[in-house]
């Protein structure tokens, strides 16, 4: 057995142990994730890689969840955003269309189940709702299609726009969806406005699994499918057509690539992943309101794609993991840690931390994180951490 194989096994084993002994420790969980990344990247035989990742994701992670429910929640959120990042990756990374309003598709999917899977639909239709929880599975496909159609509707008018203008128009659309969600409580109450919709039905969990574990496995399954779909799209004439459009639209057209159809397809495919996850999100959260679907979320997903690498499938997953963990665990952990230090009366250079203004809360600084990620990545590594082959060639020559 090679050294790296041994290291991989050791990393996974040791970090799992660390988490088992210190379930509340953010560092231990980060170590576990680091171990998984190592397994993914290391020069080890494929069977070992797949085996270790499989064991880690299917066995170890739920076990960790038993010790610390929050870790499982983080893992589930990572999965949700990974699917979103993979969707945006198609639009931005493959086809080169900068969509700044991507969260709109997520919202559309979420609201589609939220409305029909909750008593709220009675307000609109007069009775017969909510639909039984089992309808959730059908709605995964409903969300997919509704989001795809929304993607096409968005795509149609913006087809002729380029670069900057396309970005701003999609931003506008995203904002329009948000404002609509916030205001469509009159004349007909579609979305219940800022109050949001609740309670949203959940499907009956198979095998009597607790919902934390159930949603984790479901998210994992969907992410695997999304990754598979992405790879198949990428390695096909469709993927090549998208790349050609991104390289040189005029030449692509001259070579017989139907621009309109391909761009709409990109929007529709990208949107559909967000749609499915939206449905899942609303069932998982049981409560949604327009606050979850703002420009901040769109940029968050963009930051994930940029960080990981535009057009790169592993990059999108990595980006989603890093950003989600940063926001949900690191920043939050910093906030908690700071509070502990304050309570303990710790002083730094003669200044008591308890005197820090109460408004200063590290957990709230998501925007700063996104901003820093975007700027630093653009200046120092525009091709991302795990670049797609083609982007590596395109952007590597910009590196100083």
């Amino acid at each position: 057995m090679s050294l790296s194989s041994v290291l991989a096994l050791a990393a996974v084993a040791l970090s799992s142990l660390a988490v088992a002994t210190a379930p509340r420790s953010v560092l231990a969980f980060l170590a576990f994730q680091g171990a998984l990344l190592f397994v993914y990247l290391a020069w080890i035989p494929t069977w070992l890689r797949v085996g270790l990742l499989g064991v880690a994701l299917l066995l170890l992670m739920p076990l960790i969840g038993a010790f610390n429910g929050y870790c499982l929640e983080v893992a589930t959120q990572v999965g949700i955003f990974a699917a979103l990042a993979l969707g945006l990756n198609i639009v931005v990374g493959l086809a080169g269309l900068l969509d700044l309003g991507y969260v709109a598709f997520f919202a559309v999917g979420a609201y589609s189940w939220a409305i029909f899977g909750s008593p709220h639909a009675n307000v609109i239709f007069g009775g017969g709702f909510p639909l039984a929880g089992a309808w959730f599975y059908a709605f995964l496909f409903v969300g997919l299609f509704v989001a795809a159609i929304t993607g096409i509707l968005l795509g149609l008018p913006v087809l002729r726009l380029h670069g900057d203008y396309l970005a701003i128009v999609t931003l506008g659309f995203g904002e329009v969806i948000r404002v609509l969600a916030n205001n469509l409580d009159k004349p007909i109450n579609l979305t219940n406005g800022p109050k949001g919709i609740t309670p949203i039905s959940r499907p009956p969990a198979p095998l009597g699994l607790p919902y934390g574990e159930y949603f984790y496995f479901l998210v994992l399954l969907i992410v695997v499918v999304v990754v598979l779909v992405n790879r198949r799209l990428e390695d096909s004439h469709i993927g090549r057509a998208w790349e050609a459009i991104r390289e040189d639209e005029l030449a692509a057209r001259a070579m017989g690539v139907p621009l309109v159809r391909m761009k709409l397809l990109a929007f529709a495919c990208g949107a559909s992943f967000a749609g499915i996850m939206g449905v899942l999100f609303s069932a998982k959260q049981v409560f949604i309101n327009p606050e979850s679907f703002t420009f901040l979320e769109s940029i968050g997903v963009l930051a994930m794609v940029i960080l990981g690498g535009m057009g790169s499938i592993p990059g999108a997953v990595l980006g989603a993991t890093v950003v989600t963990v940063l926001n949900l665990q690191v920043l939050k952990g910093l906030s908690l840690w700071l509070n502990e230090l304050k309570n303990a009366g710790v002083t730094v250079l003669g200044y008591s931390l308890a005197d820090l203004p109460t408004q200063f809360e590290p957990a709230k600084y998501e925007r700063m994180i996104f901003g820093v990620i975007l700027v630093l990545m653009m200046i120092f590594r525009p091709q991302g951490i795990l670049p797609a082959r083609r982007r590596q060639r395109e952007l590597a020559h910009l590196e100083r």
Partner: protein
Amino acid sequence: MAALFDARGVTKRFGGLTALQAVDFALESGIASIIGPNGAGKTTLFNIFTGLYPADEGSVTFRGRALFGLRPDQITALGICRTFQNIRLFANMTVIENVLVGMNSRIALGLWDVLSHGPRFARTEADLSTRAVALLDRVGLQANANDVARNLPYGDQRRLELARALASEPALLLLDEPTAGMTRTEAGALMRLLRELVVDLGLAIILIEHNMRVVMEVSDRVTVLDHGEKIAEGPPREVQSDARVIEAYLGTRGSAPQRARRA
């Protein structure tokens, strides 16, 4: 049997400038060249033929089908393909990927085929690969199949452009200054290749060229444009000694003998 390609009375204005004035151009087979001083409207004509923008007046038909109002990708699907004056390869894609994109209009796969990786998908992709390699072989780039397009030397890039255009299985090929920047040897090789393509594939080719040696050697027919008008058309020798043509290039009578010697 409808004529292969027939353009009549093509007129195009850009604001106050008349780029093309009632130009007729027809081709059945073989290689026809369009020459003329810079700004004569040659590329504009190509752009109209391939649907980049419509003509203001006149008609263009291909195999009896009017091309007016069709998009460039639709025209390519019908069987006309072009190359560009400035190389427009997909720079960061590999050589073979460039050719594969060229085949886009001939692929009958749908979204479901791609997602399901069914037998049709496997067969089609294998078929595409084989054809792509064969095309690269024909232009002499088979050894470079996995090289990145931007890294190819200039002459090879031109040949890749040709291979990519051929990938769409056109009946009519429009080449915009294909030998620009080439050495005499390279240009000669390209011309021989074009001749082979006409014979082997039954292709008709329209060339825009400035290289007179190439034009005279390879063309069955030469058309001369000047300031948007057709001023001469016929076999190469005839056109070469046409007084109006000489005047168009030189502007005055006089140093014609030197010009003729260099050509």
